[in-house]
C-alpha cells in the first residue's frame, strides 16, 4: 500500500467516523426537540417508567444486595487490619452512592432495559409499525422515542438509589448481623461521613448522565437498525457494548470532575 493509499484510507475512515458522530448529534438534537411534546402527554412517560423501571427492580435489588454483601466482607477484612472496622458503614455507603450504585445500575440497565428498548423499536421498524405511524402523520420520534427517553432518564436515578439502598442493607447484614460490628457505629459513621450534596448528589448526577447515555444508545440503535432479524440482533448487541463502554468512560470523566478536588 502506497503512502497515498494509506492516507486515503485514513481519510475515508475519519470521514466515516465524523459522519456517524454527526448523525448521532442530529438524532440527539431531534430527540431533545421532541421532549416537550412527550412531556405534555405525561401518561406515555409514566407507562415507560413502569416498563423500564419496574421490570428492572428485581435484578437491581438482587445485584445491589449481592454487591452489599461483598462490600461488607471485603471492607471488614481491609478495615480491621487498621483497626477501623467501625468505619464499615461509611465505606459501604460511600462506595455505593458515589461509584458502584450509578455504575453497576447503568451496566445492568444497559443489559436489561437497553436491549429491551432496542429490540422493541427494531421490531416495530421491521413490522413497518414506525412507517405506518409516519404515514398517519404521527412522528415516531415524538410518539415512541421521546417518552421512552424521558422514562429511561427518570428510571435510572431511581434504580441507582434502590441499588445503593439495598446494597447498604446488604453491608449492614454482613457487617452488623453476621460479623458483629456495633450497629450504632455502623450508622453514625455513615451519617457523619456521607455528604448529601457532594456524595449523594453527585451520585444522582452520575446516574442521570448514565440514564441519558444508555437510553439514547438503545433508542438510536433500535431506530437505525436494519429491519431484519440479523439487524435487530446486531443492534441489540451494539446497545450493550456501546452503553457499557460509554458508562465506564463517562464515569471516569465525571469522577475526575466531581471528586478530584480534595475538600
Amino acid at each position: 500500500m502506497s503512502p497515498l493509499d494509506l492516507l486515503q484510507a485514513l481519510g475515508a475512515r475519519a470521514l466515516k467516523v465524523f459522519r456517524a458522530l454527526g448523525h448521532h448529534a442530529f438524532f440527539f438534537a431531534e430527540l431533545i426537540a421532541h421532549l416537550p411534546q412527550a412531556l405534555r402527554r405525561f401518561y406515555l412517560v409514566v407507562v415507560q417508567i413502569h416498563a423500564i423501571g419496574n421490570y428492572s427492580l428485581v435484578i437491581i435489588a438482587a445485584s445491589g444486595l449481592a454487591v452489599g454483601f461483598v462490600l461488607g466482607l471485603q471492607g471488614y477484612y481491609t478495615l480491621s487490619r487498621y483497626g477501623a472496622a467501625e468505619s464499615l458503614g461509611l465505606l459501604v455507603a460511600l462506595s455505593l452512592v458515589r461509584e458502584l450504585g450509578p455504575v453497576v445500575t447503568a451496566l445492568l440497565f444497559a443489559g436489561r432495559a437497553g436491549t429491551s428498548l432496542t429490540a422493541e423499536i427494531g421490531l416495530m421498524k421491521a413490522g413497518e409499525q414506525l412507517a405506518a405511524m409516519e404515514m398517519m402523520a404521527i412522528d415516531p420520534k415524538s410518539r415512541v422515542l421521546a417518552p421512552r427517553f424521558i422514562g429511561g432518564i427518570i428510571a435510572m436515578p431511581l434504580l441507582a438509589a434502590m441499588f445503593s439502598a439495598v446494597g447498604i442493607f446488604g453491608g449492614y447484614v454482613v457487617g452488623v448481623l453476621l460479623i458483629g460490628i456495633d450497629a450504632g457505629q455502623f450508622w453514625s459513621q455513615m451519617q457523619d461521613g456521607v455528604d448529601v450534596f457532594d456524595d449523594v448528589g453527585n451520585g444522582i448526577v452520575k446516574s442521570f448522565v448514565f440514564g441519558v447515555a444508555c437510553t439514547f444508545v438503545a433508542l438510536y440503535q433500535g431506530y437505525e437498525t436494519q429491519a431484519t432479524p440479523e439487524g435487530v440482533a446486531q443492534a441489540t448487541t451494539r446497545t450493550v457494548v456501546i452503553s457499557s463502554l460509554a458508562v465506564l468512560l463517562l464515569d471516569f470523566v465525571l469522577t475526575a470532575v466531581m471528586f478530584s478536588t480534595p475538600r
Partner: protein
Amino acid sequence: MLRAQSRQDAVSQDDFITVDRVTFGYEPSRTILNDVSARFARGKVTAIMGGSGCGKTTLLRLIGGVYAADRGSIIFDGERVDARDKNLLFRLRRRLGMLFQFGALFTDLTVFENVAFPLREHTNLPESMIRDIVLMKLNAVGLRGAAPLRISEVSGGMARRIALARAIALDPDLIMYDEPFAGLDPISMGVTANLIRKLNDATGATSLIVSHDVQECFMICDYAYLLSSAGRVVAHGTPRELQASDDPEVRQFIRGEPDGPVRFHYPARPVAEEFGVRV
C-alpha cells in the same frame, strides 16, 4: 387500451394524484421507476399492477412522501409532494390512509386501540365518540366483535381487515392499499376485495391498489396501470381494455404465462457453458 407512450388525455381531468415523469432509484446505479407518468382519478379505484420488484410499492411511498423522486413530480390534490417539507407532508398524510402489506398493526395494543390510535392522536373527540367511531369502522369490516382481542390473537386475514378499519378511521380522501390480497385465503381475499370497493363507493375516497393479483384487481378497479420489470408504465386502461389487449407483455402478465417478453430466467451464461457440456 392506451400504450404508455401516448399522453393520458383520455383519463378524467379531475385527477386526485398526478405522477409526472417520475424517475427514482434507492441507489444511483439502480433505477426502480423510470419516467413513470400516471393519473389517479378522484373517487375511483385505480390498480397499479406488475411483477414483484417492478416498483409498485415504491410508487406508493413516493406518493406518500417517504422518498423524494430523483426526477419528475407528484401532485397530491393540487399540491406538489415535497419529501423534505415535513409540515407539508404531515398535512397531506392526514388526508390519506394506507393499508400496509402485512397490516403493520401495533402489537402492544388491542384491536380497538389500534383503530382508535389515529383518532386519539389527531382529534380531541371525547372517548365516548371515539368508541362509537371505532366500533362503526370495525363493524364495516365485520370485526366489531373482535374489538377487545389482542393482535396476537387474530388471523392474517383479520389483521388485514383491522388495518383497513384503522386506515379509514379518519375518513381519508385517499386510501392506498399495498398488496391487500397477498397471503390471504380465497374467502378472505374475496371479502377484502369487496370491502375495498364498497368502502370506496361509500366514502367517495380515491383508492390506489398495488397488487399482482390480476383477477381480484380487475374485479374491483375502474382503471389499471401495468408496470414492467424495468419500472416503466407498459400499458394502462380499464380492466376490459387491458384484458382485450394483444400486447405480448400485457397478455403474458394477465394470463400468467411463464415465458414471454418477461423472461423466466434471470440473465445467465448459457447452460452448456455453465455445466461444461459440449453440445
